[in-house]
C-alpha cells in the first residue's frame, strides 16, 4: 500500500461565463458602440490633444472619425481578448485598456474639430481630486485598522475651518496647516474615543460627527468669521512649489512638479501609506488588527492602541485635505464648504478597494470625470449642464456596478474589539 496524493486538476471545464468573460462581453458591446456609433457621429476633422494648457504648442492630432473608430476597435479587441480567455493576470491590463479605448473614442468624437489641452485637463483633474485623495487615505487608515469612518466629511470640514482660523490668526500658511491637522484630529479623537472606548456604533458616530462638525464650524463661522473676516478668515494662500528641472518635462512636469505643496504631500502620502501598510511593522500590525483583532491580541499587539493611533493619523491626513479647501483652492472658509467631498472620498475609498493606490485612482477617476463634464459644457455640448454634471456620479455607479462589484472590506471593519 502506498500513498498517492490525488490532485484536483483539469477537472470538469470551468464555468464559461466567468467574471472575465462577462467583462469582455461588456467591452465588446461598448467597443462596437464606440467604433461604429461615435465614429459615425464624429466630424471628420482633426481632434487635437495639445500638450500644453491651450490650443498652442505641440499636439497629438487624429482625425475624429478615424480616432473614434480606432479606439473603439481597441476596446473591442480588449473585450475579445477577455472573451477568448487569456491568462488571468492580464485581466486588469485588458480591462483598463478597454475602458481607456472607450473613453478615448468618446473624446475623439467630442474633440473632433476642436482641441483638448492635456495639461489643463490633467492638472484640473488632479486639483479636483486632491481633497478626495486625502479624505480617502484617512478612510484607508481607519478602515484597515477596523474602524468604519463615515465622518471623513466632518474631518475635512473641521480641517478647512482650522486652517482658515489658525492661518489667519498667525498669518502663517504652515501654522494654518497645523490648525487644519488639529481640526481633523479633533474629530478623529471623538470618533476614536466614542467608537473604541464607548463602543458606539461606528456608522452612527461617523454620521453624527459630520453633523457636529457642520454645526460647530457653522456656528463659529457666523460668530467669528462673518463678523470679522479680517481677523479670522483671511488665511494666507499656499504658493505653488516649483521643482526646478522636473517641472520642465512636457505635460507631466507642469501637472506634477509645479503645483501646491499639498498635492505633493497627498501623492507622497499615497506612497508612504501604501508601502507602510505592506512593508512595515506598523502596517502589518494595522492590517492584523483590522482583519483579526483577537489574533493580533494573542501575539501581544495592543488592539485598541493600534486603532487609536491609526484613527488619529487618519485625522491628520483628513485635516490636510481640509487645508486644501481653505489654503489652496479658496483662500477663505465658507459654511459647509466641503459640500459632500467627504462622502465622495468615502465612495472612492470603497471603490478603490480600501487600498491607498486604489483610492488615488478612484479619486483621479472622479476628478477626471468632473473635468470632462466641464470641458464638454465649455465647448458647447448640446447636453444640458445638469446632465453633464451627472457624469462623474453616473460613471462611478457604472464602474462600481459593472467593473468592481463586491469589494472585500477588512474582516473586522466596524466591529468593536471587546475583551471578555
Amino acid at each position: 500500500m502506498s500513498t498517492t496524493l490525488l490532485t484536483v486538476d483539469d477537472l470538469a471545464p470551468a464555468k464559461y461565463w466567468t467574471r472575465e468573460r462577462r467583462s469582455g462581453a461588456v467591452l465588446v458591446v461598448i467597443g462596437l458602440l464606440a467604433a461604429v456609433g461615435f465614429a459615425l457621429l464624429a466630424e471628420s476633422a482633426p481632434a487635437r490633444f495639445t500638450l500644453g494648457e491651450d490650443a498652442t504648442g505641440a499636439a497629438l492630432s487624429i482625425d475624429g472619425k478615424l480616432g473614434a473608430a480606432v479606439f473603439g476597435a481597441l476596446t473591442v479587441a480588449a473585450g475579445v481578448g477577455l472573451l477568448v480567455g487569456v491568462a488571468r493576470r492580464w485581466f486588469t491590463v485588458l480591462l483598463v485598456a478597454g475602458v481607456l479605448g472607450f473613453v478615448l473614442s468618446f473624446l475623439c468624437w467630442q474633440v473632433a474639430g476642436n482641441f483638448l489641452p492635456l495639461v489643463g485637463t490633467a492638472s484640473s483633474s488632479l486639483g479636483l481630486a486632491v481633497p478626495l485623495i486625502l479624505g480617502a487615505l484617512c478612510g484607508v487608515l481607519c478602515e484597515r485598522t477596523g474602524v468604519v469612518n463615515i465622518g471623513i466629511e466632518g474631518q475635512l470640514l473641521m480641517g478647512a475651518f482650522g486652517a482658515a482660523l489658525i492661518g489667519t490668526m498667525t498669518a502663517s500658511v504652515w501654522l494654518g496647516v497645523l490648525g487644519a491637522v488639529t481640526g481633523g484630529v479633533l474629530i478623529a479623537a471623538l470618533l476614536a474615543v466614542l467608537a473604541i472606548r464607548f463602543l458606539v456604533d461606528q456608522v452612527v458616530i461617523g454620521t453624527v460627527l459630520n453633523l457636529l462638525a457642520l454645526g460647530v464650524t457653522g456656528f463659529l463661522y457666523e460668530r467669528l468669521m462673518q463678523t470679522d473676516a479680517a481677523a479670522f478668515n483671511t488665511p494666507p494662500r499656499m504658493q505653488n512649489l516649483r521643482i526646478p528641472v522636473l517641472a520642465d518635462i512636457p505635460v507631466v512636469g507642469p501637472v506634477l512638479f509645479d503645483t501646491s505643496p499639498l498635492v505633493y504631500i497627498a501623492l507622497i502620502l499615497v506612497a508612504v501609506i501604501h508601502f507602510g501598510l505592506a512593508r512595515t511593522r506598523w502596517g502589518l500590525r494595522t492590517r492584523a488588527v483590522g482583519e483579526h483583532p483577537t489574533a493580533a491580541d494573542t501575539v501581544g499587539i495592543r488592539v485598541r492602541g493600534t486603532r487609536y493611533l491609526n484613527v488619529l493619523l487618519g485625522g491628520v491626513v483628513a485635516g490636510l485635505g481640509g487645508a486644501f479647501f481653505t489654503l489652496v483652492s479658496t483662500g477663505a472658509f465658507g459654511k459647509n464648504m466641503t459640500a459632500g467631498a467627504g462622502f465622495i472620498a468615502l465612495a472612492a475609498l470603497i471603490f478603490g478597494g480600501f487600498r491607498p493606490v486604489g483610492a488615488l485612482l478612484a479619486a483621479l477617476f472622479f476628478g477626471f470625470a468632473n473635468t470632462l463634464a466641464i470641458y464638454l459644457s465649455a465647448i458647447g455640448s448640446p447636453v444640458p449642464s445638469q446632465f453633464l454634471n451627472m457624469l462623474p456620479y453616473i460613471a462611478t455607479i457604472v464602474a462600481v456596478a459593472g467593473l468592481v462589484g463586491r469589494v472585500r472590506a477588512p474582516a473586522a471593519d466596524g466591529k468593536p474589539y471587546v475583551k471578555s
Partner: protein
Amino acid sequence: GEAPEENAAGGGDAPAYSTCMVTDTGGIDDKSFNASAWAGLEAAKAEASNISTKFTASNAIADYEPNLTDFAAQKCNLILAVGGLMTDATKKIAAANPNSQFAIVDAAIPDATNVYPLQFDTAQASYLAGYLAAGYSKSGTVATYGGMNIPPVTIFMDGFVDGVAKYNEVKGKSVKVLGWDKATQKGTFAEDFTSQAKGKAISDTFVGQGADVILPVAGGTGLGTAAAAAESGGKYSVIWVDSDGCEVAAQYCSAFLSTVVKSVSGGVKDAALKGSKGEKLDAAVGYKGTLENGGVSLGAYHEFDSKVPAELKAEIDQLKNDIIAGTIKVESEAAPK
C-alpha cells in the same frame, strides 16, 4: 409676542424704525444679493440714526414663513425678504399681517399692497459688460458661466451674449462667447455656488479654449475664477457681478476688468431710508433698478482703467445712453416684467 428691542440710538426725534431682514437659503454672506441687501440696511442705519437692523437666516425653504412671521410678531417696521424664492411665503405672511410693511428683493407680488418690490433689470448692465468684454478681448473669445441655470443667473448671461453680439454687429467682428447659448438657453454651469475648485476648473477650461475675459455668475464659485485670473498674471481678466469686485474681493482686484453692478444695497438702502422718514413704500410703484436710475450699472474699471481704450469707453457710454433712451432694447426671458 414680545416687545421689540427699541434701541433708538442717537435719540433723534424721528421714531425708532426697525428693519428686519430674512435671508434666503444662501445665508447672510452669500457674496450676492443677501450680503448686498444687508449692506444696504447697514448703510441706511449709518445714515439715519433711528434705524435699527436685524436679520435672521433661513436654512431651508420651509423656514421662510416662520421667519417672516416671527418678525411680524416682533413688530418690525420693515420686513425685508431677500430673493424671488421667498415670493410665496412673503405673499402669504404679508396677507396675514396686513399692518406690517414688507419688501422683497428680486420679485414683485402683484396684489400685495404691503409688499414693496425691489427688482433689477440686470441684463441692461451686463449688455454693456458684453460689449466691453468683446472690445477688450485680444483673442476674440470671451466666456461666461453660471452657478445654476436659473433666471437670476441667466439674466446676466443673456445680456452679456447680446452685448457681444452688438459688438460683432457694429464692428463686423466675430467674437465668440463660450458658456452660454441664449437661443437654446443652454450653457456651462457649476451646479454649485461655493466650490472655488470647480470655478477654477471651469475657467481653466475656458482659457484653454482661448477665452481671455470671463464673466462668472456663480457667487463663491466665481472666486475660483478670480483667484486663478489674478495668478495668471494678466493672461485673462474677469468681469465680476453684483457688487464691485474690487470691494468684495479686493485681493483679486488686479483681475477685475469691471463689474456688472446690481445695486441691491442701493435699492434696499433707499427703501429703508424712505420708510424711516415715514414715507409710504408704494407697492404699485416699487423699485426697479435700471441703468437710468443707477440700480444697475457697469462698475469702475479700477486697475484696468488705463488699459481699456478711451474709444471703447466712449462707445459703452453711448450704448448706455441708448439703452436709457430706449433706442436699444435689451431683452431677456429672465428680466423683470
